[in-house]
């Protein structure tokens, strides 16, 4: 049990580094093109490098707060939620890991996720619906699964990937607005320039889109989910708790729920988009999570 996990931790740290490198190269490349456009490639590269360093710092040091804000989660204390707090503390004792911060998302859809850069700086967020539906042992199973993700450094990779992907999407939205604004406001004489910007952005988006799709898969593979389930079962010594929790919450995902967010869906214990895709066989191929039935089957076989 020990060695495969240590191998996984090292591999996750490596992948995070590689992810950063890839983003850095992309940024510098974009900076270079924009630099050519404004007449000085060096300025473009320096600017891109600066922006990247800022992004790096944000995603590494406050990735978890960016993610909790995106998910609409709020931190709770022991006095506010004793049941949840006690359960998380029990799992922290069982796993021998430090206590994560606890967040709640006020929605009836049952789900949970973890984020953070290492076990000392991590959070676990659960929805109100999850707490209402699960008993102590089932909740323990879910929390143990999230602790396992933290312990295996899956969350570092996922958090960083989400923040970086999110910022690039943000930048592309701004760029699109600028083109739109420029095109409407001026036209005529500057139309040529606007077209060039449009072309650059289109090329950039065309390059980035498939890479992001790949990166998100990269960050949140199905193997990780099985691994986290197995680690969770080891922490609690009671796989049935998690199995029963998965059964209870998988069918409860609803369409257009407040937690349905493309960027975050891979982070949750059960994919929130299941509600939208239910009955669609093809979706299994592109799923960030293995089917719940398979996870339950494997847990019960332990």
């Amino acid at each position, binding site marked *: 049990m020990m060695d495969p996990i240590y191998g996984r931790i090292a591999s996750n740290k490596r992948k995070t580094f590689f992810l950063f490198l890839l983003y850095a190269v992309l940024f510098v490349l974009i900076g270079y093109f924009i630099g050519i456009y404004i007449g000085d490639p060096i300025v473009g590269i320096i600017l891109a490098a600066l922006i990247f360093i800022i992004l790096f710092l944000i995603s590494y040091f406050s990735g978890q707060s960016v993610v909790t804000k995106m998910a609409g989660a709020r931190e709770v204390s022991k006095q506010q939620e*004793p049941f949840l707090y*006690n359960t998380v503390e029990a*799992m922290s004792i*069982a796993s021998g890991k430090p206590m994560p911060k606890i967040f709640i998302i006020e929605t009836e859809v049952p789900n949970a996720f973890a984020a953070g850069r290492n076990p000392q700086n991590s959070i676990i967020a659960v929805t109100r619906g999850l707490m209402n539906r699960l008993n102590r042992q089932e909740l323990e199973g879910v929390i143990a699964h999230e602790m396992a993700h933290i312990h295996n450094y899956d969350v570092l990779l996922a958090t960083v990937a989400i923040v970086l992907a999110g910022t690039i999407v943000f930048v592309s939205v701004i760029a699109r607005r600028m083109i739109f604004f420029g095109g409407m406001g001026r036209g005529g004489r500057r139309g040529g320039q606007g077209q060039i910007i449009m072309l650059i952005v289109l090329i950039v988006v065309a390059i980035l889109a498939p890479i992001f799709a790949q990166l998100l898969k990269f960050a949140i593979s199905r193997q990780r989910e099985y691994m986290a389930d197995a680690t969770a079962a080891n922490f609690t010594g009671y796989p049935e708790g998690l199995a029963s929790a998965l059964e209870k919450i998988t069918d409860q995902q609803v369409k257009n729920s407040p937690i349905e967010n493309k960027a975050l869906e891979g982070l949750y214990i059960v994919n929130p988009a299941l509600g939208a895709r239910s009955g669609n066989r093809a979706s299994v191929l592109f799923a960030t999570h293995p089917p719940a039935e398979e996870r339950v089957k494997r847990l019960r076989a332990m």
Partner: protein
Amino acid sequence: METTHILLAVLILVVLYVIYSFNRLISMRNMADKAYSNIDTLLQKRFDLVPNLVNTVKGYMEHERELLEAVTRARTEWLNASNIKENAGADQTAERAIKSLFAVSENYPDLKANQNFMMLQEELTGIENKIAYARQRYNRTVMAINTAVQRFPTNLIARLFKFQTREYFAVESDQARSAPQINMQGGDNK
């Protein structure tokens, strides 16, 4: 010349292995110490709540004097405990007594509606649960230590540096694991 090189290589490997095993034994020992102090802290927290629990329940459960006495007795037992075995014994007595107290409390709707009792019940059920996990963790660490101390060749290194086998905290039996399970009915009010 050839043979001295080989001998030297073997010697270096042996020394490296001894260093590695020694460090592993040390970190396992530290883990066990930490796990044990975890149990200790939790037992302290639980028994600190006992007088409060008894006072809250006393007025409602006139006829269950025996149950209350059992809880108080477990606390006294723990206060007088001086080794792992006695600690574990007191832990088991208390676990059983508190569990049956909560089970019986189902028959007292007034008590169940008492705000203070509800808080105590969640707190104590939570602590019972944490103790079960702390015990599990400690016992697993002890098992790892004992295996290392007894198995060849780490037993030689353990003997050299005077590492000893450790005592388990009670028994991690099915009975112990089922403790929070039975509490569920009472503690599942959230």
